[in-house]
């Protein structure tokens, strides 16, 4: 039905654009990771030094591990918060479901910066939380450890990603045909058992999708540490950022980015494979 001219017309422009401005840049980053900086200049010599530096440097390894710990914590907490919310909305919200759903997605689209800034003002020594605690005489002096720590980064990112994790879980739960749940009750299972044996397994694809998403994005986040992380909350993306800034070593920065990329792609393919196995459609 569609002529060859039509098909060429619709395929060529996006293909060319994406090839030029997406594929090529990504490939460039990949190439940079094999180059060097010598005497302050970028040298196009192919080598693996950057990857050696990455593995050999204890600081980098430590930060990478810390980043993965933070990302894992954020993912875990987001799931622990997002799942009950999704479950409540799907199974118990009744007529108000639509309204609550809109209420949950609205913060999702509100500026990352706005929400990060909010936490900055809350967690600081002079911040709202400390003021609140002192007002209630729960503490008598500011708790300094709240802000500028990995803890603050985790809190902020959890706040950001909980709605993100909520979405696919909610969608999965909505897809579960209610007669299945009724059948489970009919066969004698109580609510907890029904949840563990029927609802949870069927919601796995959504859960995996959301969790992967939260993990991958937390892994590469550099803004949260700059806002609320302080020196102890530095993450691997900050190292990359400084290598592209003051510490001028683009190839090394590219190498680290490639590592982040590899971890991301690996995780995504694993999840895709799991999803296919878990999918009961």
């Amino acid at each position, binding site marked *: 039905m569609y002529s060859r001219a039509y098909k060429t017309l619709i395929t060529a422009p996006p293909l060319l654009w994406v090839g030029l401005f997406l594929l090529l840049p990504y490939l460039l980053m990949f190439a940079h990771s094999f180059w060097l900086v010598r005497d302050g200049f970028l040298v196009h010599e192919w080598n693996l030094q950057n990857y050696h530096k990455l593995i050999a440097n204890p600081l980098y390894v430590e930060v990478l591990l810390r980043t993965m710990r933070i990302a894992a914590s954020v993912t875990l907490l987001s799931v622990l918060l997002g799942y009950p*919310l999704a479950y409540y909305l799907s199974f118990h919200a009744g007529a108000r479901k639509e309204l609550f759903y809109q209420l949950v997605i609205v913060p999702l689209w509100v500026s990352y910066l706005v929400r990060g*800034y909010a936490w900055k003002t809350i967690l600081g020594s002079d911040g709202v939380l400390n003021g609140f605690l002192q007002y209630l005489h729960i503490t008598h002096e500011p708790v300094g450890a709240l802000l500028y720590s990995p803890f603050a980064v985790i809190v902020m990112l959890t706040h950001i990603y909980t709605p993100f994790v909520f*979405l696919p879980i909610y969608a999965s739960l909505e897809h579960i045909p*209610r007669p299945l749940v009724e059948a489970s009750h009919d066969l004698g299972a109580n609510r907890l058992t029904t949840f563990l044996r029927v609802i949870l397994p069927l919601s796995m694809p959504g859960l995996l999708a959301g969790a992967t998403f939260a993990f991958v994005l937390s892994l*590469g986040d550099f803004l949260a540490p700059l806002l609320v992380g302080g020196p102890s909350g530095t993450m691997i993306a900050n190292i990359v950022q400084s290598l592209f800034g003051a510490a001028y070593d683009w190839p090394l920065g590219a190498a680290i980015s490639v590592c982040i990329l590899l971890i991301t792609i690996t995780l995504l393919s694993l999840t895709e494979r799991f999803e296919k196995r878990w999918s009961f459609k």
Partner: protein
Amino acid sequence: MVVQMTGANKSAKFPSRAPILTSVAILIFAFIYLPIVVLIVYSFNRDGVGGFPPQHLTLDWYRQLFADGAIWDAVLNSVIVAAASVALALTLGLLAALALNRADFPGKALFRRLVLLPLILPGIITGLSLLMFAVFVHLPLSLGTVFLGHGTALISVATTELFAGLQKIDRAQEEASLDLGATPWQTFWRVTLPNLKLSLIAAGLLIFTLSMDEIAVTFFLIGRDNTLPLEIWGRLRRGITPEINAISTLIFALSVALIVIWYRIRTRSLGAKPQDLLEQAAAQQQEQAA
């Protein structure tokens, strides 16, 4: 004698009594909203950000905000970049959606993944890649490079939304148009595009909002002129002032309005439960800072 009916009329709905779950859900809701509420409240606080409770409510910070020229320059920059990004992303996104929906070509699978990649990857990677590209072709950093970054990355959003919209179109309508004598070009303008009108508007709204709030990719592509998020960011480095609360409150209000409109339009255009499609779109959706 009164005969009681028991249980026979139990509704098919799941029992709603779950006090613990309800309380937990409310707490989680609170966790999500409280920081924003705090932010808004303190934008009216005379004594600045921090301390408790806020006293002496005032509009001074808003007055200061409206007098702040640099902020509004940044707003203008952001709007220009966002509008241009919408135009670029919608055009290329529409073509990409059509291509994915109707054509078979070598590298189609690769293309599909490539287009969606910016949604899933942390923003720093896309931002740095584009930076390297700009340097490589000796392109100076400016709002132009920012536009390049936003537009390219947001093609993914446009493609996803428009693809969903295309799938909803009854193919027979286009066949009917051809059957009645319209050329494929006429068919596109008279039948396909009008059917996509709502999808285009919804996608446009979303892209605009995301571009206005974008930081991670912008961070590496910015030149002399700031966009709004980066202007705010710069000030944050210098210290916290409630003026930032004020602008944040305004951003929040505007975002809410746009998103609610977007949601309503999407519901109308696609008919199906938006959560299914949101799950598709947003499960790969790029968060502003990612």
